[in-house]
């Protein structure tokens, strides 16, 4: 039989003014199971808490109801007091007679009746409460960072500098990401590679960072503090231990005409290649789709070309290397997979992206995108920093930049603003102006979004000091006539149509998440939006956490981000990870779901509604070891306690502790007439 103590708080005048607190305490005395019912001026004061403790000891209470303010205010206080008296803290609950009663009603009689009801509801709940214990989960204090761009690099370095091991997985042959492709960065125009390269080297040399380049996450199991990650280490065809990065192999490769991914197709590379001179790790990789030997093998022909192997003094070339799967235990994961650019061609990866036929579907050679322009402007780029047209290598004297290509365009692209284009277009006009002094840069824009430290000043400089012509309006059509590009536009400020000729056009195409992010998100069971960007747990207050505990997000895989944003996010994830790793054990509220194994029918409706992937399949075996039933098991480390599973379970075989059906039934019962 329950022995419940009820403690009604006056909260000074706050409750006492409109609620007859003594009357409430008296009314509760008749409730079956209540053995102690008192009222007091300030329950949360030390003497008030002491009253609770004393009553627990003296009356042998099995449950405590404090009728006072919102549980959001003082639940912790009174649970602590309860625990202090040796009673399980989860046997204490609060009846909210302040926010939900005294503060919103004037009529004393009505408010008192309501306060009694509220208290009775909680009495009935507490009668059915059971002792719960905080869940403690061991934490593996190593982190996985997915993506070796600037965000991933920053996160990895910060975590490693914080004293924890990091595994950094990069799918490309080198870390560095898009930032390594940039020429200069806005708004300071400092050299991108100059600031990035040292960080890349630091990663490589850091004793607590294990770098898996040319690798991808194969699968992820487990939950916060206890992930098991399988990484596919793709075969480079080069023995990492033997190779000394001399580059002799790349010199002799006969296939030299492969468009370089790093140079966005504007430069060429060989089939065995290092993507760029500062690559980390500085190891060549054989592109098996382009290597003559592998092309021959694919056709069933004998190996002919082995020039690279012959050239290698270390015997590091290994054509028979296979992909390897390695498994790592980690306690936290940072997703930093970055972005790709919208391509304007017809062959868009998703149906709703139609490409830009009116701009020639990207078939006009001198229409390039912003990243290609970066490569042209980069001193290490295919033109050694000269702005030259891809079609004929001439210097364009009239260059036109179009903003919002694929951005802010729900019809053919994405409705969102890609955030960085306004700034990099301004930067491009300046770089162009610095390199082609007699050239004219024109920008078609819709709005200039330059909210950032020094950003507005920077974009104004492009217009005011560097001669860029800004035309407010979108371009309707472009086509090629002879060697000029005809542009049909409209100046909405002037109110006139514009037909202009350009030698080169740069499209500021939209930022999109990396292809395959959806598959990765599914492996991690984190949610993503309709564009594929990873969802943060809360847009304001938990911007670098995902809805899956222990998985964090940094950089442009969450939304379009510029470098400072990405770096700030990365450091934020590192601080979250280090915070998580501060303790060997993780403590969690015991408000988690629990399966009644005898009752579970194994329909897995719970699994379908669980947003966290907390429901697992559990085999029930007979004595002979045969599986006789498969039932649900809720992993308490993963469960967040929403209880959707319980409402969904047809046989009510899963119970959310702290909000069980018994408890809620009692509450409803308490309100009966």
């Amino acid at each position: 039989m329950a022995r419940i103590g009820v403690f009604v708080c006056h909260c000074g005048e706050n409750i006492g003014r409109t609620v007859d607190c003594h009357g409430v305490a008296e009314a509760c005395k008749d409730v079956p199971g209540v053995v102690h019912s008192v009222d007091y001026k300030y329950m949360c004061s030390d003497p008030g808490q002491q009253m609770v403790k004393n009553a627990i000891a003296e009356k042998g209470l099995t449950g405590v109801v404090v009728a006072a303010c919102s549980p959001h205010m003082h639940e912790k206080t009174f649970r602590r007091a309860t625990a202090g008296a040796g009673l399980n803290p989860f046997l204490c609950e609060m009846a909210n007679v302040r926010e939900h009663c005294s503060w919103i009603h004037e009529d004393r009689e009505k408010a008192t009746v309501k306060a009694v009801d509220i208290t009775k509801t909680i009495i009935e709940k507490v009668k059915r409460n059971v002792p719960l214990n905080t869940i403690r989960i061991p934490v593996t204090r190593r982190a996985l960072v997915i993506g070796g761009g600037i965000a991933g690099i920053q996160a990895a370095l910060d975590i490693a500098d914080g004293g924890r091991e990091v595994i950094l997985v990069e799918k490309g042959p080198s870390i560095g990401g898009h930032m390594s492709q940039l020429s200069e960065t806005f708004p300071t125009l400092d050299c991108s590679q100059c600031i990035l390269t040292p960080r890349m080297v630091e990663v490589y040399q850091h004793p607590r960072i294990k770098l898996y380049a040319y690798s991808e996450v194969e699968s992820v199991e487990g939950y916060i503090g206890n992930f098991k990650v399988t990484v596919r280490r793709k075969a480079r065809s080069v023995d990492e231990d033997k190779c000394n990065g001399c580059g002799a192999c790349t010199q002799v490769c006969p296939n030299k005409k492969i468009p370089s991914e790093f140079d966005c197709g504007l430069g060429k590379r060989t089939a065995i290649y290092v993507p760029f001179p500062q690559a980390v790790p500085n190891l060549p990789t054989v592109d098996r789709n382009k290597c003559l030997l592998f092309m021959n093998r694919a056709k069933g022909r004998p190996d002919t070309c082995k020039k690279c192997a012959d050239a290698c003094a270390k015997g590091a070339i290994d054509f028979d290397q296979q992909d390897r799967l390695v498994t790592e235990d980690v306690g936290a994961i940072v997703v930093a997979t970055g972005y790709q650019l919208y391509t304007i061609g017809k062959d868009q990866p998703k149906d709703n992206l139609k490409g830009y036929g009116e701009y020639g579907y990207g078939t006009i050679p001198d229409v390039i995108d912003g990243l290609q322009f970066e490569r042209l402007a980069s001193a290490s780029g295919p033109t050694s920093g000269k702005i030259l047209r891809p079609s004929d290598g001439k210097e364009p004297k009239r260059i036109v930049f179009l903003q919002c290509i694929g951005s802010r365009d729900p019809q053919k692209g994405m409705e969102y603003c890609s955030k960085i284009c306004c700034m990099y277009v301004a930067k491009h006009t300046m770089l162009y102006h610095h390199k082609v002094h007699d050239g004219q840069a024109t920008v078609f824009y819709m709005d200039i979004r330059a909210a950032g430290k020094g950003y507005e000043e920077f974009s104004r400089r492009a217009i005011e000091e560097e001669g860029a012509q800004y035309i407010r309006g979108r371009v309707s059509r472009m086509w090629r006539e002879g060697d000029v590009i005809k542009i049909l536009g409209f100046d909405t400020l002037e109110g006139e149509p514009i037909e202009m000729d350009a030698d080169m056009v740069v499209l500021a195409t939209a930022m999109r998440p990396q292809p395959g992010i959806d598959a990765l998100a599914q492996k991690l069971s984190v949610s993503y939006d309709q564009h594929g960007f990873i969802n943060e747990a809360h847009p304001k207050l938990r911007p670098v956490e995902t809805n899956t505990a222990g998985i964090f997000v940094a950089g442009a895989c969450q939304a379009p981000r510029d470098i400072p944003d990405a770096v700030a996010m990365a450091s934020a994830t590192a601080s979250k990870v280090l915070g998580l790793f501060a303790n060997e054990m993780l403590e969690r509220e015991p408000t988690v779901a629990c399966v009644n194994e005898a009752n579970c029918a194994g329909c897995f409706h719970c699994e379908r509604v669980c947003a966290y992937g907390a429901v697992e399949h559990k085999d029930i075996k007979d004595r002979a070891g045969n599986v006789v039933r498969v039932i649900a098991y809720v992993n308490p480390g993963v469960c967040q306690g929403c209880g959707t599973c319980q409402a969904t379970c047809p046989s009510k075989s899963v119970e959310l502790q702290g909000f069980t059906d018994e408890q809620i039934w009692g509450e409803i019962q308490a309100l009966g007439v």
Partner: protein
Amino acid sequence: MGSHEHSHDHSGPEPLAARVQRMTGLNPACCYQCGKCSAGCPMAAETTLRPHDVMRLVARNRLDKLADADGLWLCLTCETCTSRCPNGCDPARTMDALREIFAAGKDGKPPKAISAFHKSFLNQVRNHGRLFEMGLIMSYKLGGGPMFADVTTTPSVLARGKLGLAPHNVKGMDEVRRIFAACAEEEAQP
């Protein structure tokens, strides 16, 4: 019963944007004035009312400015604006709705020549069920169209057997007239 009352009592005509939205199901506020429509408009050079101007004036409730200009009637309904609009605004359909508003005659008048042409055209259809081109030319002229610059070419048209001299009346004339009448009646309702 509810605590907040909703009333449409504040008098005055319905805002143009709301009216257009009611007619077309499109939200004129979607236009962010990028001008891509006008950039591709074949009539942009001739008209003072380019598609993005139209969208703006609708959003700003400027029935007066729209009524003042010929632009609406110069639209070729080529759908270029609609096809290229990044935000799905459909200026062509919006202009249809505006023409409809003005054709009803209560809010301003369409330019004589173009209006006369459309009137003649529809009269032909109402009276015969199909277009009687010769009849159209005649009635257009009588209805106030400019002295037809092509009168000189008409004989050559006839000579090529291109113009019939007598109208063809469809059998379902009653139905066609009923459609005209029913539409007029339907549209007349508030």
